[in-house]
């Protein structure tokens, strides 16, 4: 009977141990939830640094990170089930127009991360050269799709002038490597690295000079922004500070990410290269850490309206809150 008694005692003690681990935070720190994309990644280094190096704690926050897929991030933040999220700017425009009450409060990526990627020599210098090409993309939604249509429209083209091939498993890289498509949409800090690792030299066609679009940033629910702007500001500033640290010293960011992201240990060199490429997208002299460039947004708003993704019923100033990180 003794082993059974021991087991019974353990079973009774176990819930207590688990409960202890989940003890509420010390009263000085407010617990908030941050929703990030699909799974932990080295690109979320600023958040990991802010958690581990005390930036959030110094701002009186304990930040719990959860991972969700895109439309759920917007919905949960809007409904108040999470305080903060990271979302693409173009998605925010569409969601806000569709009636989801979120506001973009801080820029994370000063450069728009999506580009058209292809083998050297194949990628046209000018979007007019896209006519007749086959392009691989995850699907007919998201910032990749918006960027592609914006590039085509800049040359007076539509999706009917190209052949679209959907890669719902986000494996358009394989399609390009196999020669199934001429070009793919992808993230500047991801697909080019993977292709170069396969020995394929690539070139990029970016939206920046042709149809500029804002990059991903932090979103909050309208209700939270109205009720507690100080909380929002505190989070945004702490995050911006941590991001600045990582930009200045990537090692800090890498160390914090290594502690949180399980897959980094499998291929640390690739993760490191991704982090450094990502830092290039965060960095920008034009408008400073976290700030929201209103002119860029205005241009992008018009582009999205002309493309038919939004109908203009919700004005731009309801979508962004530049005052949060301004100043």
């Amino acid at each position: 009977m003794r082993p059974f008694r021991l087991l019974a005692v353990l079973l009774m003690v176990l819930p207590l141990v688990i409960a202890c681990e989940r003890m509420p935070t010390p009263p000085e720190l407010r617990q908030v939830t941050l929703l990030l994309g699909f799974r932990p990644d080295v690109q979320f280094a600023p958040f990991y640094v802010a958690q581990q190096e005390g930036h959030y704690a110094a701002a009186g926050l304990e930040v719990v990170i959860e991972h969700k897929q895109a439309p759920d991030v917007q919905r949960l933040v809007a409904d108040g089930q999470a305080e903060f999220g990271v979302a693409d700017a173009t998605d925010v425009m569409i969601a806000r127009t569709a009636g989801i009450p979120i506001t973009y409060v801080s820029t994370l990526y000063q450069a728009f991360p999506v580009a058209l990627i292809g083998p050297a020599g194949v990628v046209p210098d000018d979007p007019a050269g896209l006519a007749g090409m086959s392009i691989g993309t995850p699907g007919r939604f998201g910032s990749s799709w918006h960027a592609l249509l914006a590039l085509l429209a800049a040359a007076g083209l539509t999706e009917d002038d190209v052949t679209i091939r959907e890669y719902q498993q986000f494996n358009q890289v394989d399609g390009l490597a196999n020669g199934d498509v001429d070009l793919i949409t992808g993230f500047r800090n991801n697909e080019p690295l993977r292709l170069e690792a396969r020995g394929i030299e690539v070139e990029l066609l970016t939206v920046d000079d042709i149809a500029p679009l804002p990059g991903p940033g932090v979103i909050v629910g309208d209700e939270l922004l109205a009720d507690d702007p100080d909380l929002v500001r505190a989070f945004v500033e702490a995050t911006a500070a941590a991001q600045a640290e990582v930009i200045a010293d990537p090692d800090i960011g890498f160390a914090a990410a290594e502690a949180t992201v399980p897959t980094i240990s499998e291929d640390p060199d690739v993760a490191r290269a991704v982090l450094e490429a990502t830092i290039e997208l965060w960095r920008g002299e034009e408008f400073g850490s976290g700030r929201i460039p209103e002119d860029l947004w205005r241009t992008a708003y018009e582009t999205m309206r002309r493309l038919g993704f939004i109908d203009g019923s919700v004005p731009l100033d309801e979508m962004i809150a530049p005052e949060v990180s301004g100043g």
Partner: protein
Amino acid sequence: MKRVGASLVSLAVFVIAWKLVTVVGSMPEYILPAPEVVAERGVRAIGSGVLWEHAGVTLVEIVLGFAAGASLAVMTGIALGKSVLVERVLSPYIVAAQAVPILALAPLLDIWFGGGLLARVAICALIVFFPIAIATMVGIRSADPLLDEMLRSLGAGPAKRTRLLEIPSALPVIFGGLRVGVTLAVIGAVVAEWAGAGSGLGVLINIANQGLFDTPLMFVALAALAIIGLAFHGLVVLAERRLVIR
């Protein structure tokens, strides 16, 4: 008429309960839209042709996928039912294929079958296969051995006994499998579309959800799938009434 009346009442109860949930739970439209919002969005989607464009694609996938899967399943089920050896040889693979989640297999199948309508029909057929094959096998084996002996005494060989006794005996059970199978065909078509399709109600769900952040439209697509499933199920029940003599 009583049956129709009862169905209408239960539908009304369902819609009212739905509305109550949205009101009592203060559900925002982007999380759970109220029935009238979905209805209005549906009317707009039908008017703009969007709904039919996608529903038509999915209907074709369902019809072809179910037809292919069901025929293959009935033939396999007859073989399984008649021969213990065949059952022993085949059933490990059939059961294993059923146990692997189709959602994981579907992208691979999509590539193997060339990514077009054929791939989606194949995925749909695969999902439909198992319950119909098993139902057929059980049905074939349920044939009355006394009747079997009677037929043998009249000189009927195995083929005649299958046609005259085993298949008609199996029909009630087979139709049970077909009812399950036809509703699975709807799921199968959506799963197949998620593996890589340009249009269809499954794709519309994705577009509405991730592209347009239009939750009411997503519910319209879901409602369309439910209606399609009900319609096909009803057709199978009608066929059952005609073909199965009790």
